[in-house]
């Protein structure tokens, strides 16, 4: 029988590694932060309780992502009919992509940190309002005396610039 402390250490290590991908997947399907937090907690709980079912000869992230998908679909079924939701086939496709690229995400995460250091002050201010204060574009527009459309366009531009920077960094890392 394995030592419970070892098992806890093992779960902690594996989960710490998988968590950014899992949470990113959940946030991509449920843009409401509170919902995403609930699903993440449910996923973590399920991962812990079903850890004995995990085949340790296989990668952990796809297994955890499978549980996350199940939890996301469960949440989806509980939502009011007529709500604005992604369909199950799209959720499947997104989950598959997240799982396929699981090994890339840590590298992408490091690149994001470096790229954010180079963001313009104006873009940084916008991102702070969006992600730290969790404001919608309309509310950000009110704060900045701008328009919601303008804020959305600038957010899109900031994310696109970030994506381009990440791609450049990953390419450089590949060459280097």
């Amino acid at each position, binding site marked *: 029988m394995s030592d419970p402390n070892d098992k806890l250490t093992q779960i902690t290590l594996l989960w710490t590694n998988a968590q950014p991908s899992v949470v990113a997947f959940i*946030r991509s399907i449920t843009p409401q*932060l509170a919902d995403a937090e609930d699903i993440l907690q449910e996923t973590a709980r399920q991962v812990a309780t079903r850890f004995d079912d995990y085949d340790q000869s296989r990668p952990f992230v796809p297994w955890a992502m499978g549980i996350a998908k199940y939890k996301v679909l469960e949440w989806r079924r509980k939502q009011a009919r007529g709500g604005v939701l992604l*369909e199950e086939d799209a959720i499947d496709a997104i989950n*598959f992509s997240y799982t396929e*690229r699981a090994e890339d995400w840590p590298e992408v995460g490091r690149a994001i940190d470096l790229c954010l250091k180079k963001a313009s002050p104006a873009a*940084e*201010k916008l991102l*702070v309002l969006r*992600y730290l204060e969790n404001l919608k574009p309309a509310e950000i527009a009110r704060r900045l005396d701008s328009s919601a459309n303008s804020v959305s366009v600038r957010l899109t531009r900031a*994310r696109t610039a970030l994506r381009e920077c990440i791609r450049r960094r990953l390419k450089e890392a590949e060459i280097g």
Partner: protein
Amino acid sequence: MENPDKNIDAWLDGVLEKEGCHELNGWIVASPENAEYFAERSHIHSSLFDWAKAIGSCGVDDVVESVEYSVASNSPKIRGKAKAIAAAVVAALLAVFLLNSDPAPVPGNPVAELIESSGAKLVYHGQAMAAEEKVILSGNYQLVEGIASIEFETGVTLLIEAPAEFRMASSELVELSSGRVSAHVPPEGIGFTIKTPSAEVVDYGTDFAVEVGKDRSSEVHVFEGEVEVQLREGETDPVRLLTNDATRIEYETDVPLGIPVDNDRFLRSLDEPAMEYSRIIREMNPVVYFRMGIPKEGKVMKNLGGPIDGQLMDGACKRPPFAPGRVGSSVKFEGPGVSPHVVAYNYPKAEGPISVSAWVRAGSWSRRGCIAANENKNVLGQFRLGFDRDSGRIKVRVRDDENREVQLIDPEVLPLKEWQHIVFVADGETLRLFRNGQEVASAECGLISNPRNTSADQLFVGAQDNRDGKMTHFWHGRIDEIALFNHPLTDADIMKQYQSVSQ
């Protein structure tokens, strides 16, 4: 899906409508590449939450303040302006404190800078701004005269023509109540918005112009790039305009009407471009060369051919008398009634051969509309170039050294609303008239000398004086790049001028 990034981001920001979500769903399942693209973008979105959480540990207010501080201090452009901006805010506060009068504006935040102007008179919250005031604070403005060029931190520049009323809401938003504005938006300024009574124009990196009419309808013209026009209400789908697209939105109906883009209406720069044409003209040694651009020093029309400048007389014009020209800007003449014109006194007149070249764009065949003349109280001096009474044909009249009047008339009517290159040359033997590089008429003619029967010292452009010395025979349309040479231009010179901007 036309713009995946936009839809994905709207989804991630929780503002995607049902129809957009349906579209996004279809796009994701259409190919594994699409799903992967969505995953990549949403992963960035998720990482941004984690990044924000990490920096948020120092306190929300501190973060926002530090970002605001870095906006003000890190940008080299802003750093240079910091003193002026601080001085303006202090000055505005002092004004409020000292005057303690109701109309004094509450100072807003610095949002932009007046970088250039041509006779611009700006009114801020009902009070005239000093000419030397360059900092544009947020708040309500009227441009009552002239043209103002305003630049924002992001490099967005606006060229505003009087009369105009607008509110500088922030460095990303201008609300235009009336008037005409052209905008240049570099990549850093993407998202810049001009709001009108009937629409909201969001820019995606482009050159575009907006005009709000008295009836509060709006027109949007895109010269390059892309903009999105969000309608005020009613129609929910925005209108996307690409290069050479334009739309009109009536205030009452709120329905977009596609219209042809108007490249000839909006001024896009206060600067005359240093183009090949200008170099060619200067190499031909003119004695008078008016580029007919927007003057930056009052009403002075700079003479690039010699020391005698012209004066732009535009006292009664409601809006600045300029419009896009054949090369850069041109002077726009309103025709009979009240119209601007240019006068140069005591310019160096010909004593022998003479040539005059100009680009003209007629709005109508105004009776005896004058392009350029050396006359005095309707008595011919050395030359007169303009329309032949009501015929719509260009006529040139000169007085030679035997005091004979010689005239030529183009056999064809001048096309309206098209730029035409007009030249006449008197070389001592022949008077020749050219249109678009081709000779259209000629007659025997002696050298040109100072006329004996008149003391015509002025050169008029766009009008001439009558017997009472009042201005008459106004040109209706535009005149650009007018040059006078006290020597004969050759056929090759004329063709070179014409071809340098025609090709």
